[in-house]
């Protein structure tokens, strides 16, 4: 009996070591792309994090866009033209109202959420609305910060309601915004 144990233990140990080494090697080489990277915007002087799996798809006149991993949502990272006014959020309400003005009295437009908040000492407004455009239900989350270096900064998540799973951790992006 003892003899069998002496033979069996090394065999089991060898097999276990082999399995664990192979498993560990696979884990090392086949990692998922997760996490966030930081974007430092030299134009606006802000920085923020965005998910690694979201891909930059080129420049807008005032910013750039990120395409979702499944290519079903778009995150616009953009800013207004500079008016050289002082930093502050005094006219943030007017700015947001002017952006949403084209939807006024439109039966297909519905505000889902409208929250006033702050990023550091800069005012911000976080609005989520839905709209049916030519029969396609859309959901837009518009996060606008008050003026910094004379510019409003926009973080706009544009998605179809049909693809709601393909969204980023918007809260994390917003929390990572830093004004330098």
């Amino acid at each position: 009996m003892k003899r069998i144990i002496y033979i069996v233990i090394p065999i089991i140990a060898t097999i276990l070591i082999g399995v664990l080494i192979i498993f560990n090697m696979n884990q090392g080489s086949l990692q998922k792309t997760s996490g966030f990277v930081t974007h430092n915007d030299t134009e606006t002087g802000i920085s923020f994090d965005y998910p690694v799996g979201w891909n930059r798809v080129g420049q807008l006149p005032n910013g750039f866009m990120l395409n979702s991993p499944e290519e079903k949502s778009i995150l616009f990272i953009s800013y207004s033209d500079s008016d050289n006014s002082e930093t502050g959020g005094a006219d943030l309400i007017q700015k947001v109202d002017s952006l949403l003005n084209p939807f006024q009295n439109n039966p297909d437009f519905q505000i889902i959420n409208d929250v006033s908040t702050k990023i550091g000492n800069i005012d911000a407004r976080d609005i989520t609305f839905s709209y049916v455009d030519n029969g396609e239900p859309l959901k837009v989350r518009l996060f606008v910060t008050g003026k910094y270096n004379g510019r409003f900064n926009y973080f706009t998540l544009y998605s179809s309601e049909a693809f709601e799973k393909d969204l980023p951790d918007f809260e994390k992006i917003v929390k990572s915004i830093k004004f330098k």
Partner: protein
Amino acid sequence: MNKVIKTKNIVGFVLFLTLLCGYSFYNPQLTYGQSSLPPVSGQIRTGGGYMTTSGVQQSETQKNVQESTSFMVKTAAKIEDSGPVGSVLRSISGVPNPFTYDSPLTKDFFAKTDNVSGTEMEKISQIYQLTADAVPNYGAPGTNVADLTKLSTFEEVLSCGTGICRDQAGLLNDALKRNGINSRLVPGQVEKPGDHIWVRVKTSTGEEFDLDSTWYKDFIKLLPRKQNPVENKCSALSFTSIFDAIKKKLITFKFFGNGGYAEKSIKLEIDNKTNDFLKIKIPLGLILFNEDSSQQNLVVAKDGSACLSPGDPIIILDGYCANAHKDSPRSGTGLSIGAMAPQELLQVLKDNELNDTHDQRKVWNVTDKLNIDPLSNKIKIWWNDSLKKSSDILDAITGWIKMITIIFLIVEVISYLIYERFILKREKAVLTRIFILLKYLVGKIKQLFKKKNI
């Protein structure tokens, strides 16, 4: 090799907006300049001469124009739309507003189109003719070329009677909408030369047809251009990462150097083993180790994505070299999948919009510090990537436990052998047991071969 159905890992802003307009027509020499053909009864004026109605339909079939179902492309079309979504997207992006209603030529044009009369179809026909006549020429306003990056206002387009398809379709769509006609911009592709945009109308009776005043200077109702069947099929699928596809044995693949040390430097031959389309993603940051150790390893610089038909297409990926002191990877050299890039390298790849060979230096600046090498990386990268992310701390702890277990087992076996040899002084017994073990394993292998009849 079957062709790759679609690869759209990166769509620049040029594409984002300019994809809304391809080149003029199948007759490139008439791309610019006055479309001076006089109207002829029963004939349709086109960029390439006159055509009969049946000739137009035949030409449509030959050109195989297809509506795009891509969310990205449809969003691009909306930015030029006069509706509220277009307004918001333009406002946040800094895209100039093309709807210059208060400018004299625009005011004059819409005064004419707003005053058309007759039945719904007569109105559509008149608006079409007014638009085609107002913008008979193809090209970017104020230039002598089809500059697809130029975003023009209605006033600019009308002032020289020149516009690309985005301008012409935008003007027609807006004039129709102002008359209460249900219309929308439709982005799509032509096999040659590329992307295009036109207008789709749905009348109050439910009739649906397409209008293309860029290509046809006389009013003609076109059969609604169909959705791209492959894009449609692929659009409904979710992406599978190359790692999952390997694990699930959905593909076989081989990476090769594609020549050069930057940009399109990686070739992936991939065999889709399924009987259906497969949407696959090769993540940015994937390190590929060169099978020739004198040549540099490569890192995938942009997410590669493709919708693969069953078969064995080739994908070309953007990659950058990761070992400045080694030789440039040669075309056809085999590459094997390594680890994912550490955070520091990912940051450089994501945030620098690497576009050309000059950007190689930015990558080397980081990779020189990191020592991207098969031996050093497997642990180092796992280490960095896991510990730096708080969400992955659990993974890191699991990794530690596995390592400790391995070490413990090895120590246990060695201790047992030492105990037998030096404490119990049973050298012969130890050797005998090792021999028995080997004999047992050889016996089992022999049995296995006999069973499989190899």
